[in-house]
């Protein structure tokens, strides 16, 4: 137990010497504040991997680490589309996921936002369209914001979430 406490004390508020980290944290705080400001309450996200290579998932998972600390901003990942405000969709949409993605979209209550994450979500990426791939997410469900990158960094994903929330409603 003592070891744990010591380690927590040393980790403290995460600090790295570089200036770059300070910039990143202040950008994060701005994004957090803006997201909270628009919605006026916590944001519930349902992540859907519709055919990703799993690289994008690594960076979405990083949003939970103490640096990006999205829980601290009132953003949480929820287990059901029925409780979600926003869908975070990765991958070119695999043909074998097309129906599951549409169902998830339909099960999400209005008003709902969709963010397509990664080059694949934006354009189909390197996988493109084929017998097995529907390509970009917007080929299958309406999309409010797209985040390019392969995979996009966590701050880029946060920015994408913000721009979806700020987008004019369809």
């Amino acid at each position, binding site marked *: 137990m003592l*070891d*744990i406490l010591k*380690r*927590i004390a040393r*980790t403290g508020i*995460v600090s*790295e010497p570089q200036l770059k*980290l300070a910039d990143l944290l202040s950008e994060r705080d701005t994004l957090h504040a803006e997201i909270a400001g628009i919605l006026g309450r916590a944001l519930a996200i349902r*992540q*859907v*991997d*519709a*055919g*990703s*290579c*799993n*690289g*994008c*998932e*690594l*960076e*979405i*998972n*990083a949003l*939970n*680490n*103490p*640096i990006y600390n999205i829980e601290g901003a009132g953003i949480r*990942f929820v*287990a*059901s589309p029925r409780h979600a405000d926003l869908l975070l969709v990765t*991958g*070119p949409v*695999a*043909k*074998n*996921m*097309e*129906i*599951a993605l549409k169902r*998830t979209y339909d099960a999400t209550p209005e008003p709902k936002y969709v963010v397509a994450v990664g080059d694949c979500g934006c354009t189909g*990426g*390197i*996988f*493109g*369209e*084929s*017998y*097995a*791939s529907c390509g970009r997410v917007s080929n299958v469900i309406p999309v409010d914001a797209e985040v390019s990158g*392969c*995979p996009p*960094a966590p701050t880029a994903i946060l920015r994408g979430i913000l721009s979806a929330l700020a987008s004019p409603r369809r």
Partner: protein
Amino acid sequence: MNAANSGSDMPAWLVIERVVRSHWSLSARGERDAGAVLLALWADDRRDLGEGFLLRAAYLGASRLRVIELALDEAAPAFPSLVEIYPGAVRMECAVRDVLGVQADSADSRAWLRHAGWPVDYLPLRHDADRSARFAAQAEDYAFVRVEGDGVHEIAVGPVHAGTIEPGHFRFSVVGEKVLRLEQRLGYVHKGIEQRFSQMDLQQGQRLAARVSGDTAVAYSWAYCMALEQLCGTRVPARAQQLRAVLLERERIANHLGDLGALGNDAGFGFGLTQFSLLKERLLRANAEVYGARYPMDGIVPGGVATNLSSQQIERLREQGMVLEAAVVELRAIYDEHAGVQDRFVTTGRMSPELAQRLGVVGLAARASGSPRDLRSDLALAPYAGLGVQAAGSAQGDVAARVAVRFDEVIESLRLCDLLLQDLAGGAIHAELGAAAAQQLGIGLVEGWRGPVMIALEATVDGRIRRCHPHDPSWQNWPALEHAIIGNIVPDFPLINKSFNLSYSGQDL
């Protein structure tokens, strides 16, 4: 038997043999008795060369890979199933049927990769399959095996899961909380990777290989480049080989750190997740500084590596390695002494060495169940030969063992990185590639963080990809998870699943 490939650059660890039909199963039996695992099974449409279809099986032994080839009749491409000899063959046999219409005589008749996304007579890897064909998705009824009995009920989850993980379907048959049976249904993220390869030139193929399973990008890139360099007879400079290994070990460390945190969390120890996710984040941030990408997916390129390291960058990475090592040692002691964590880890999700061997489990999961195989020490290809790689090992086979193997491997990878960085050769980081030998098989084999990753590559005469088959160790290890969960309680599934942490994308292709 005769040699099907006499390329002068065929490495000593690779044997390729063509057999007649009666020797297909015989050779499999011989391999099994010699302790080799069936690593991959795939096929190729060679009707344009007047050779019908060619089926291949790759057997991985302690110090070599043997590829056995069987020519199949153009009109009725059927072959003897290997399921009796290697139970793990079943899904691969279903997959070759789904993509090529090449049929094992006793395969499970249910579609594995195809689902209902395209019609049964569309065979995407046949050369005459229309590349512009698109089909309307249909809802599908899959015949899961039903377990009958008093008080048995079914729990179905997926394909979309509760957390941020890949999609797949799990069907549990349970009594109370206890799992009697688990049946997996995968293939949801099949996105036509193999067909896509055959539309690319040899250089571009590396980028697609890196995206077969993004968390294993470096291992796949390296395997792809190794196969291509074999076909081209390229000698990769020593410095480039060392820098490749640094990238590969950093990929292993990043994944293990992520898993160690998630496993702590699944055992109710959120502190572990906080600490390990921070360590991983620091590693990624150093990657961004040094390689220009948090995930340097394209750090390895045909002929060498994309980025050289300056002496300051080398120091930066070595320094980070030292700090990381101290932190990991400290966290390991905390995990080891935490009664709650140990209570959840020990005996949970056990896979005995006998079962692991029978199922042909590979990589990290096999090392946690008594089989100390690791390509880095077994094949000891450049630059691993002189490094004295210690394969991690445990015979316990439970979650605790898979955690222990990860801890050991992080420490070993940190040691290897430091050794490599300390002793980097001078000179070029890239060699020019000559022309690739056409219609010959090149094989790349790399110990990724999950286990052996293989790329089988063939070129066309005009420098394009004729066929590329990527193989992920998850093919072998997914069926092991079906066994490891039996007798455990449903609430332990996330923990057991995470302790394997298998790739969906890598097996769905």
